[in-house]
């Protein structure tokens, strides 16, 4: 066990080509999917919190349900859509990073929207009453409301990125964990562990944690400056 750990450190220090590739694919996939999910989920969540109709409350329930969809189910769905006989096969997304991003966005967007929705709900009455009182338009009110969430955006992004980088089920089904193409850190850890090769798995685990730690430090610094 300890030797596997030492070997992992040595592997990291050597800048192994395979390892580097896995990390890069992971970053590309996670950054893209978390940013897209943020871009869609934030206005969606804000809209859900602002809506007062029965339809809006029904959509909130639908969204909360989607927040709990197991990743493998989402992966299965995407697989069925993208595979050789699937209705979306012409998109040619199966076993590509883009396909993985689609699956991740489907998984993460409801989580972003749900987080925004519950946060915005706590603000919306005061903001709306104040904005209406000085004659601001609906659009302007919505924009102000989004602006009031500037602190929360970072928290939500961390959740989204954390999900994207840590997730296995959906990306392995859609991406297929193809070496030098769609193999990301989590799928690689599973693969190498199954083969009994713990060294690469541990090395990847260390990088995964360090990357997320770095992101957290950066975000908390930015957050402190923005939310003054």
């Amino acid at each position, binding site marked *: 066990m300890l030797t596997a750990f030492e070997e992992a450190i040595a592997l990291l220090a050597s800048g192994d080509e395979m390892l580097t590739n896995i990390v890069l694919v992971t970053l590309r996939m996670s950054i893209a999917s978390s940013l897209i999910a943020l871009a869609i989920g934030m206005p969606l969540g804000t809209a859900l919190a602002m809506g007062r109709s029965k339809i809006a409350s029904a959509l909130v329930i639908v969204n909360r349900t989607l927040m709990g969809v197991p990743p493998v189910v989402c992966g299965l769905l995407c697989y069925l859509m993208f595979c050789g006989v699937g209705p979306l096969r012409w998109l040619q997304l199966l076993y590509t990073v883009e396909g993985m991003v689609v699956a991740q966005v489907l998984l993460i967007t409801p989580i972003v929207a749900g987080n925004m929705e519950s946060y915005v709900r706590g603000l919306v009455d*005061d*903001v709306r009453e104040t904005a*209406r009182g000085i004659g601001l338009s609906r659009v302007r009110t919505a924009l102000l409301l989004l602006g009031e969430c500037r602190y929360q955006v970072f928290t939500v992004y961390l959740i989204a990125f954390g999900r994207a980088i840590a997730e296995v089920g959906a990306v392995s089904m859609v991406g297929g964990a193809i070496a030098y193409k769609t193999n990301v850190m989590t799928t690689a850890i599973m693969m190498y562990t199954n083969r009994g090769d713990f060294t690469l798995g541990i090395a990847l685990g260390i990088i995964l944690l360090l990357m997320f730690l770095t992101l957290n430090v950066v975000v908390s610094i930015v957050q402190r400056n923005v939310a003054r």
Partner: protein
Amino acid sequence: MRIEKAIKRYGAKTALDVAGIEFPRGTICAVMGVNGCGKTTLARVLAGTLRPDEGGRILGDGESVGYMPQRSYAFYGTLARNVALGAKERRFDDRCRGLIKELGLSHLEREQAKKLSGGETARMALARVLAGTWTHLVLDEPTAALDIPSTLAAERLMRDYCTEENVGIVVVTHSVSQARRLADHAIFMDGGRIVEEGPAADILSHPQTPELSEFLAILGS
């Protein structure tokens, strides 16, 4: 601006049940009554932010209503940006500058609004709504958090705004002395209903109903 009828219920409780009130331009109307009697509910209906179950406010041609909620909200950004939101073109113009000077906020112009004290935030919110051009203003306890000099300054501003721009002001207040100083007309509410109304000087000195008599007696005024 007037209300022919307005009823608002929350479950089994009737928060508001009023009829036949008129708010002419160029006058100040004080709304008084104990906690929970329905003042804010009335203010919200007048401001158009709450739709009653029955009836509602009726606006005349070209009438517009500005509203300062009971709880003042500060948006991100400086005090100046917050006040500018209420102004024409959303720009921090001379009018805004004059208002924050009157309210003793000039030295805080560049401060982050979220960092202001409770009373400073309330003064900012008052400046923000006064920065607009309205035919009517609804102010829900605008001076509740203010010290005495600021209260008097705020009253002066309300008076000037009312007479100079012919604006009808509805001001919710717990201060009988403020109502006496400021208001032309007074409404006394209890349990969502208007119990007594009339010229402020009259009803606050010679109440006609036992409810208002009792309310004034407790104050010892």
